[in-house]
């Protein structure tokens, strides 16, 4: 299997006034194609910094970061923007959809920043992505006409539309109730089964057990890294939930 993310001796320091905060103190991490990795840790453990660096939103102070074989650690702001556009899909806790903009247009957004995609191709890809997340009949709906779960599906479709090498989800189920969380996890598992590499930051252990591997951060180090044994299947958990009274 091809290595998508290859991080070696990565360090990240922040300067807050006169104090230097060591957010990451030498991290090695390899994520191979088709993996579904949970990144866990308490707040302040460095997991958010890790996600920002993996997502090319931030650059490391030291170390090597190869994304899909390309060293992105030393890239300029604009180069990183282009990398994000082509190779990364983001899913956020609070969806971050544009208000008063239809689901379809929200999904089209990443392709608007790709000069090689024409308007017809953009529309087709966006429609395909929405179909893949099961929202073919909600394309013209505005975000405020959609439930939280549906909004997160739109956000997932948006992260898929540019066919990224890795999808980064930051607490993507954090705002959702248990049932909807399982629905979303079931969707992620389905995407993973189809070969998508996913990195998922969470602090819920049942959510983490839906993935293939978990990486736990503390104080800027990886303290535990293990394959998930007895992996949970979100679709089964969904069926096991008591049926809601209508």
């Amino acid at each position, binding site marked *: 299997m091809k290595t998508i993310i290859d991080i070696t001796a990565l360090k990240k320091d922040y300067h807050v006034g006169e104090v230097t905060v060591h957010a990451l103190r030498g991290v090695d991490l390899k994520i191979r194609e088709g993996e579904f990795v949970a990144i866990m840790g308490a707040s302040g453990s460095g997991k958010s910094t890790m996600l*920002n660096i993996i997502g090319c939103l931030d650059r490391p102070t030291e170390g090597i970061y190869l994304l899909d074989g390309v060293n992105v650690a030393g890239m300029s702001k*604009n180069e990183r923007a282009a990398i994000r556009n082509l190779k990364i899909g*983001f899913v956020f806790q609070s969806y971050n959809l544009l208000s008063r903009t239809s689901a379809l247009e929200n999904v089209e*957004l990443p392709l*608007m*920043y790709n*000069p090689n995609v024409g308007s017809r191709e953009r529309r087709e890809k966006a429609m395909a992505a929405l179909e893949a997340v099961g929202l073919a009949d909600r394309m013209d709906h505005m975000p405020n006409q959609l439930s939280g779960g549906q909004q997160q599906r739109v956000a997932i479709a948006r992260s898929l539309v540019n066919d990224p090498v890795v999808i980064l989800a930051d607490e993507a189920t954090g705002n959702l109730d248990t049932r909807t969380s399982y629905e979303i996890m079931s969707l992620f598992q389905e995407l993973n089964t189809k070969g998508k590499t996913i990195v998922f930051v969470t602090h819920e252990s049942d959510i983490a057990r839906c993935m293939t591997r978990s990486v736990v951060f503390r104080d800027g180090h990886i303290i535990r890294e293990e394959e998930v044994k007895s992996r949970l299947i979100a679709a089964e958990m969904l069926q096991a939930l008591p049926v809601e009274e209508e």
Partner: protein
Amino acid sequence: MNTGNLIKVAINALKRNKMRSFLTMLGIIIGVASVITMLAIGQGSKKSIQDQIASMGSNMLFVMPGNMRMGGVQQGSSSSQRLTVKDVAAIRAECDAVVAVSPEVRSSGQAVYGNANWPTTIYGGNEQYLEIRSWGVVSGRNITDSEADGSAKVCLVGRTVADELFGEGIDPTGETIRFKNIPFRIIGVLEEKGQNSFGQDQDDVMIAPYTTVQKRILAQTHIQSIQMSAGSAEESDLAEAQVEEVLRRTHRLRENEDNDFEIRSQEELATTMTSVTEILTILLGAIAGISLLVGGIGIMNIMYVSVTERTREIGLRMSIGGRSVDILLQFLIESILLSVFGGLIGIVIGFAASAVVEAFTSWPISVMWSSVILAFVVCTVIGVFFGWYPARRASELDPIDALRFE
């Protein structure tokens, strides 16, 4: 992002806040409309004054008595009695740039016909007087030089005088009216000139031979002014120099003495009078310009609000691949669209307002294309200038902070 997409995104963003976009544009709309209307009014009043002055006569020059000293005391020009018929004769004989010359005397008084009477002014001139003032006779005939020589008691009346004494539209030629108790036979009616730029009725006049007014009404030997026509507009300056030379000699002024008369030309008068409206135009335009500036500040203000409000959107756009320059252009295009749309609407309203003013004032109001182009260019510049800083601020946001912004 390519330009087409950027414009589409900007239009969508403005459409999301229709009321706010409209109110922001309103500042620019009012600014542009007032600039265009004010400049059009200024231009219109200037044109109206120029038309009035042109209607006074063709290439006209006139000599008025100037200040003079009497035993070291400066005398007012009205007390001067230095201009005489001899000066007129000398100008006629010697100044070849002057094609027509006439003395002018005037007196105010009551014109009486039967039981009707009307206060008016009688002007005395010679046969060339009407030609100099480019005034036509609609019925009857002009006064002749022989009538002037004989102090004949004949007169021409303006339309207003005829209307007031004889009734609306009646031709009084051949009738006899009295002015200051002296009977005048009406030999003709003057063509209508209407009001001048000061609202004065130019048809409220009588014209008689200057000798008649001088001797029978005023009982004086001097004249009040000399009216002349230069051969052409280009000869106006030459005529002025020739007249000055002749009058200095006939008035026996020594080298070191100031002129005791003043020569004015129509151009000078036009310049003096239009300079007032020009100042007014600049003033009105400046006030309108300030409102345009305030409109621009309104755009800047709303763009700042918009950038703050949409911080998360900016963060999102950056995280999915928007470069700083994409964000900068997005907000810049929004502000340019606001100001240019506002400008276009303002131009339309400016035209409409000018037409309304024209309908109410009957000034010849003309919207200058230069002011339309100016307004449009200024709008675009305002859009770029006032949009730049908010757009710049948006583009410099850090995507991580922007995404976390509450």
